[in-house]
């Protein structure tokens, strides 16, 4: 049976790549390929090698940071999960394989085989990046280390998805079957929580002193018994990537392979839970096949009520209907009212806490929310995809609507940009309130107020352009940009995601160049009189130019939308 799976994966991949290469007959795809290869060359190959030692970072510390990052990724998959991606099968695979004479174990094997394609691509990317930084270890050995790390993480994510889905489906009845897994996860979570709480004050103090002090505090915190035990298995899988000589590599590879093998056994023995979990996730992924009786999509029951602020008026801009539809999709399966209440309570609590004691808890929360606001700003445009990246799959319908192309593009982009902006402003509000009572922090309260007001104006525009770039890519290269609500995810796809983020950031920088120059000029001229408050006139100046640029790009993409024909080899996730 393995032969038929290899055949399916190989032919599917070959045909998909061939189809994408055929697009190179079109000049825009060819130009994109040349630019993309040049970009990869600059990012991966042409970067001047920098030794970590020269940068003053010890190898042990790198290992520790990598282990902490891997621990974070693992905890993330347990707490937040991503069943739809981890267990994703296409509707055709569900139709042919699930009722076919295929054992559950073989299905898991097929799933792992498919995952290997993404892992291998990302292993190559990471190897290229890491090999710049290391001497003494061949590229092949480095690639093998990265492959072991990514495969272990991928297996872990799959196993976590099995446990989570099985628990969700069977509730308390499923507990005995997952007792061992849940015990380990609970111990790890408890140890992580205890370690963080124990070291929080020292790490926060280190952070306020500088990066070197922060890293020192982190290293000291990792020396405790609980953190060392907690990080030990993660260091085992990270170590082969971090070592510098073939001898060290050989010694490190044994334990890493053992961890990988244990994960394989853990996942493969889940055969009973796998079929129902994967079928459930895949069928919901293919919404057309959703069980009509349950009305559950993506594992969550849909709320039928429409939030009051999202009622659609009968009159007004026609594009508003598309904005409304996409916003509704974004909030339909999330508890908006509960979230708003929690946000309000957190805001009051943080504001009060910021005035009491040394405000360590409020400060930690403030840095945390600020960091997340930054993460959402950078990564958010790839996460929130209720726009053309989803709707191009229904291009027939969109094209039949009585709307100009530019209206469709702007409405689609507006929805995702609004969701991102709401998220970022909520996080920034919490940050602002967490430092409200802080008298020592620089910049001071007045300047922070000005920055927050500036964010109110600039974030919607910034997000609009960030999402516009993603939508523009989907419109210009529909055969290359995967469409659908799911993006390629997981740690195994981190290399691809990073390249996309950097590429988008470069494009965004190019768009921002002129507005920032204009806004900067206004700021510099008025700064001597108004201080940081000169941001208030500077931001609108920059914003005006950004709006103008946005209008031009939307108009251009609108014309491309009007020329895009359904069936032009859309890349479906």
């Amino acid at each position, binding site marked *: 049976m393995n032969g038929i799976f290899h055949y399916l994966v190989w032919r599917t991949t070959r045909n998909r790549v061939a189809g994408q290469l055929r697009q190179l007959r079109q000049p825009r795809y060819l130009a994109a390929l040349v630019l993309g290869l040049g970009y990869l060359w600059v990012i991966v190959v042409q970067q001047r090698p920098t030794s970590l030692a020269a940068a003053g970072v010890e190898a042990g510390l790198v290992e520790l940071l990598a282990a902490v990052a891997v621990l974070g990724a693992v905890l993330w998959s347990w707490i937040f999960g991503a069943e739809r991606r981890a267990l994703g099968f296409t509707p055709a695979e569900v139709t042919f394989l699930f009722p076919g004479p295929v054992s559950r174990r073989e299905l898991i094997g097929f799933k792992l085989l498919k995952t290997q394609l993404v892992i291998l691509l990302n292993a190559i990317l990471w190897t290229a990046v890491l090999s710049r930084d290391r001497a003494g270890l061949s590229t092949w050995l480095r690639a093998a280390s990265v492959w072991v790390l990514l495969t272990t993480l991928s297996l872990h994510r799959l196993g976590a998805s099995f446990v989570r889905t099985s628990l969700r489906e069977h509730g308390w009845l499923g507990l005995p079957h997952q007792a061992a897994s849940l015990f380990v996860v609970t111990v790890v979570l408890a140890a992580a929580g205890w370690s963080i709480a124990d070291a929080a004050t020292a790490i926060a103090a280190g952070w306020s002193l500088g990066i070197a002090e922060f890293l020192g505090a982190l290293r000291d915190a990792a020396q405790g018994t609980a953190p060392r035990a907690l990080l030990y298995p993660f260091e085992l899988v990270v170590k082969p990537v971090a070592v510098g000589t073939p001898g060290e590599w050989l010694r490190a590879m044994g334990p890493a392979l053992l961890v990988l093998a244990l994960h394989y056994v853990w996942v493969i023995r889940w055969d009973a839970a796998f079929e129902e979990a994967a079928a459930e996730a895949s069928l919901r992924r293919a919404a057309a096949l959703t069980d009509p009786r349950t009305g559950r999509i993506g594992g969550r029951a849909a709320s039928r009520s429409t939030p009051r602020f999202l009622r659609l008026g009968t009159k007004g801009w026609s594009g508003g209907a598309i904005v409304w539809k996409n916003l509704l999709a974004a909030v339909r399966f999330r508890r908006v009212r509960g979230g708003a209440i929690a946000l309000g309570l957190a805001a009051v609590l943080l504001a009060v806490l910021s005035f009491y004691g040394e405000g360590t808890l409020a400060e930690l929360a403030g840095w945390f929310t600020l960091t997340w606001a930054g993460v959402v700003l950078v990564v958010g445009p790839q996460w929130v995809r209720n726009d053309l990246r989803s709707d191009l799959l229904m291009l027939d319908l969109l094209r039949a609507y009585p709307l100009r192309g530019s209206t469709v593009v702007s409405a689609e982009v507006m929805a995702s940009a609004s969701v991102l902006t709401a998220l970022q402003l909520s996080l920034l509000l919490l940050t602002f309130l967490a430092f409200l009572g802080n008298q020592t922090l620089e910049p001071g309260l007045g300047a922070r107020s000005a920055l927050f007001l500036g964010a109110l104006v600039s974030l919607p525009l910034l997000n609009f352009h960030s999402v516009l770039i993603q939508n523009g890519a989907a419109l210009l290269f529909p055969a290359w940009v995967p469409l659908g609500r799911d993006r390629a995810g997981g740690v195994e796809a981190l290399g691809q995601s990073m390249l996309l983020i950097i590429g988008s950031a470069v494009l965004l920088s190019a768009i921002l160049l002129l507005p920032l120059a204009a806004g900067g000029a206004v700021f510099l001229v008025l700064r001597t009189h108004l201080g940081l408050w000169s941001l208030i006139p500077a931001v609108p100046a920059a914003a005006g130019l950004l709006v103008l640029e946005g209008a031009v790009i939307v108009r251009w993409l609108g014309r491309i939308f009007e020329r895009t*024909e359904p069936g032009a080899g859309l890349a479906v996730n």
Partner: protein
Amino acid sequence: MIEVEALHKLYGDLPAVQGLSFRVGPGEVLGLVGPNGAGKTTTIRSIAGIIRPTQGRIRIAGHDLGVDPVPAKMALAFVPDEPHLFEYLTVEEHLRFVGRLYQVPEVAQRIPAILEEMELAARGGALPGELSRGMKQKLAIACGLLHSPKAMLLDEPLTGLDPIGIRRMKATIVRRAEAGAAVILSSHLLHLVEEICTRVLILNHGRMLALGTVGEIVAARADLAGRPLEEVFLALIGHGESDA
């Protein structure tokens, strides 16, 4: 009124539609028939503004689709063979969405009536994932009818409907035509075409083989006198003898 003049559509070097011209007046139901790959869907998608003709002109309710696409599409309803629905919108929300899109006045008053007409009144709060194939099709049709279009393009509209639904849908199409809509209906169900279409357009290899009432088409071929549309169709596309 739907007017098509010298419509050509090429996919690369492959001609999908070649020199097609016809018009459908208010109150008319034109049946578009032809074997697989004849160019029916390409014709309908060109008229719906989904794909751009390589050559030719299309006018909907007097508006040139190439020059003035928004008013042209405002007068048009397109119901595809596969119902494309938004998985996060309920049945009623789909209609509200379409109402805003087409600027339908008094949409709140129209929705209950159209849900009743499509037998979806009890499913107004359901998501597409909770609907059967036939119900999804009915919802897609309801979305098409909400703005009382002057021109309707129906691509295999009865797919997935049960016998009662088929009967109701046929009555709906006829009623809309009688109310003044110009309707183009593409279908492989020749008895349906024969039953509700006022004229028939037979396509093969992207070219028009015949256009007229069934009686007119039969009259043009003495050897087919008195034969049903199915046999006329098979004879015209060259399968009459071998398959009989």
